[in-house]
């Protein structure tokens, strides 16, 4: 049996308390324990960005983060961005702009975009491209993703 630790986090706005093995990654916690499968496992080694989440508002690769390090912090996953009443503005723009093809990189891409939008008021296309450099997409060629983020920045 591995060593367990109790953690308390605010997950998508709800206080959540649970006991987890100390060696568990945040990605495994989200996907396998909490069944929040919107966070994708693309490489499990911090190279593809598909598992990007927000921790206290900062984007991180959930695969490189220990679940215990979520203790006392606010975690936002893709499931936390929309409600049954609607999508977030950036999610809606991803839909409208056809910034989604296979969709596997999409949750991570949107969370990274959400992070960039929270940090920068005036982002150039170059800023956005650099900002999503760590998020790989094999389908779209990134153009429509950048456009969606740019338009979200303009809309604010």
């Amino acid at each position, binding site marked *: 049996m591995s060593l367990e630790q109790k953690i308390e986090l605010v997950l998508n706005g709800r206080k959540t308390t649970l006991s987890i093995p100390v060696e568990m990654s945040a990605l495994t916690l989200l996907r396998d324990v909490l069944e929040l499968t919107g966070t994708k496992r693309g490489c499990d080694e911090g*190279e593809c960005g598909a598992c990007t989440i927000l921790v206290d508002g900062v984007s991180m690769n959930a695969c490189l983060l220990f679940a215990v390090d979520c203790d006392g912090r606010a975690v936002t996953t893709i499931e936390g961005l929309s409600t049954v009443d609607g999508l977030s503005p950036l999610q809606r723009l991803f*839909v409208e702009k*056809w910034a989604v093809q296979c*969709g596997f990189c999409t949750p991570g891409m949107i969370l990274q975009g959400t992070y960039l939008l929270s940090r920068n008021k005036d982002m150039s296309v170059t800023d956005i491209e650099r900002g999503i450099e760590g998020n*790989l997409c094999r389908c*779209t060629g*990134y*153009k429509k993703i950048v456009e969606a983020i740019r338009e979200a920045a303009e809309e604010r």
Partner: protein
Amino acid sequence: MTVIEKTSLIGKGVPKLDAPKKVSGEARYVQDIELPGMLHGKILRSERVHARILSIDTSAAKNLPGVHAVITAADTPGVPLGHGQDNPPLKGDRVRSMRDEVAAVAAETEAIAEEALALIRVEYEDLPAVFSPAAALLDDAPILHQKHPDNIPFTYEYGHGDVALGERESDVIIEDTFELHFVTHCCLGVSGVVARFDPEGNLTVYSQTQMPFLYKKEIAPVVGVAPEKIRVLQPAIGGGFGSKLDIYPFEPIAIFLARKTGRPVKLVFTREEEFIASPTRQPVVLTLRSGVKRDGTLTFRDARTLHDNGAYTSWGATTPFVIMQTISSLYRLPHCRYRTTVVYTNNPYSGSFRGFGNLQATFAVESHMDKLAEAVGMDPLAFRLRNAQKTGETTLQGMVFRSCGFSECLTTAAESSEFLEKRALYERYRKQSGPIRRGIGIASLLHVGGGAKIYRSDGCGTILKMDDYGHVTVLTGASEIGQGSETVIAQFVAEELGLPISWVSVVNDDSEITPWDVGVHASRTTFVAGNSAQRAARKAREKILRAAAENLGARAEELDLRRGHVVRAESGESLVELPRLLRSLHFAEKSDLVMTTEYYEPPSVAQDREFKGDVSASYAFGTHVVELEVDTETGVIRILEVTAAHDVGRVINALGIEGQIEGGVAMGMGYTLSEHLLVEKGVVQNPSFRDYKIVTAPEMPEVKMHFIESHDPEGPSGAKGVGEAPAICIPAAIANALANATGKRFYELPLTPEKVLRRLKDSRADR
């Protein structure tokens, strides 16, 4: 009176229908499937490139708590997979590559399964191995499969005209050899499958396949389950690009484990495993010898290609079908010969990858074309225009170009990018001081755009039903792998029935309820599935209009369907709301529902034994112009702008086509500049995104797009396929631009800084 104007969805940028699910994290991929009692499978792969298996000891693994089954070839029927029927899912007596599957485990968790793998002891006796096609063809080369003692599973020979005559007619003859490398798909969603048996022996597979119906047929004998007892469910697929056209050993292995344990089994690769054990684009050596008359008319082409098949034969071994089309028919060519040899090696085995041989072929042919143009003193554009075929022509391989926007693609891309002006300018820049040079290059493509009659049927079925409220459900055989087929299908249906797109939903993920389709390949889905859906919708439309005419005392041809109403066609006056009409049909004395079916088979023919015939119902053309900057001191290339002109027949969804082009440009750039699966003596050296570089956002150039609408007579609303095309001519366009920038030709990919520098320092003007 309510008047409803006629509007159209064709050509509109309708958002992708499944995007809301994907942006909210709701879409379920195979990685996300959880079933009650589900176990996790893992595969033990070979530690040797070529060896006899002397023994496998699984006892310690079996005894590990949490392990439910450990299987080897001895536990399976041993029926081989693949186009060459040479690939048993688990290898019994011999391994032929590092990815070979030797044993597999099903356990309660992935971690336990991993631990169990480490407890399996395999004794090998090494055999001599061979890692290049040239070496595998030598007399004393090790033999991989006894069935093919020459190591050649396939050869292809094609010809038309008389090459000797063509040579005599030529003023200039040029021979070039091009060498292409290993790359792999890098789908963001790794390979995976979930298999489950019910108590009656019915098998359900949650699969990523892009060919669900052929999948059933092909996997049935391998796993010993009758095809009619197999149900294929396709959760959202995290990227295909051809990689899911073949069945790979991991799928039957998961099925064996599910059968053995009586529990659902999920088997998902790690990213490292994905690099090591998923298919590749085959490395090819292409030698082209072509002649041209002084006036710029092509006379002949004699081509040879040598393919590294790897250790087993997938559908990828049939890429010569596509390669020969580009060689024989991209340009008008009176005399042609093409010979190819597909050779076994102990390398990873190759599969199907977007473009299916055409990136390799077009890199060679379009680089070579620039040299031929230069040799006769013509500019690359004029030379291509001179030899480009036109609408109505039949190529000597038998392809009928019923719609051909090739020349328009060439002129549009060239004009839009100022190709000729910049080309002259950049040639002058070569003499300037400083390390930075600029270049511009052009290249074109031919690809099937209306399916390909490779299989006995190239058709697609549609079942369409309408409910009492006007909502349409379309059951289509066509799979969705991210390309947007579901949206285009819905557009065709909504257009025929005069409905908002939100009234149409598409079901495409369950072989139990969707009708047959050959699968996602050959850029065929918009064309074939679109035609099928459009025709099914037309039948529904006719039925609705007949019923309306009867109810309203009008003639059907005076009526139209618009925005959910039956209207008078001429005035647009709404006569009745469509849902009301549907209910009146449903609840009439002689009640009826609107339900239609269609099976559309494109009017193409299978090629004959000489590989001649009109294999596709439509052909796609395109031209890309690439402008780049190269630092001659570091060898680093930066792509500045890509101008893409594609003959798409007719635009159905502009956003969807743009997405295909931009994505294709990125994939083509990766292939040309940075992607290289390094295989040293059969072992993959760079199995991670850290060391295998796909294109990232900041590397993307400006992409200018032009859609050439040639209105294909057979295409749905005139459309043709464009899925594979945008990746195809990028490599040659880049190489041609680099030649413009530096005065040197490049014959090998990828054009890494090291390779570029080495070539620039090479004092030979050309080879």
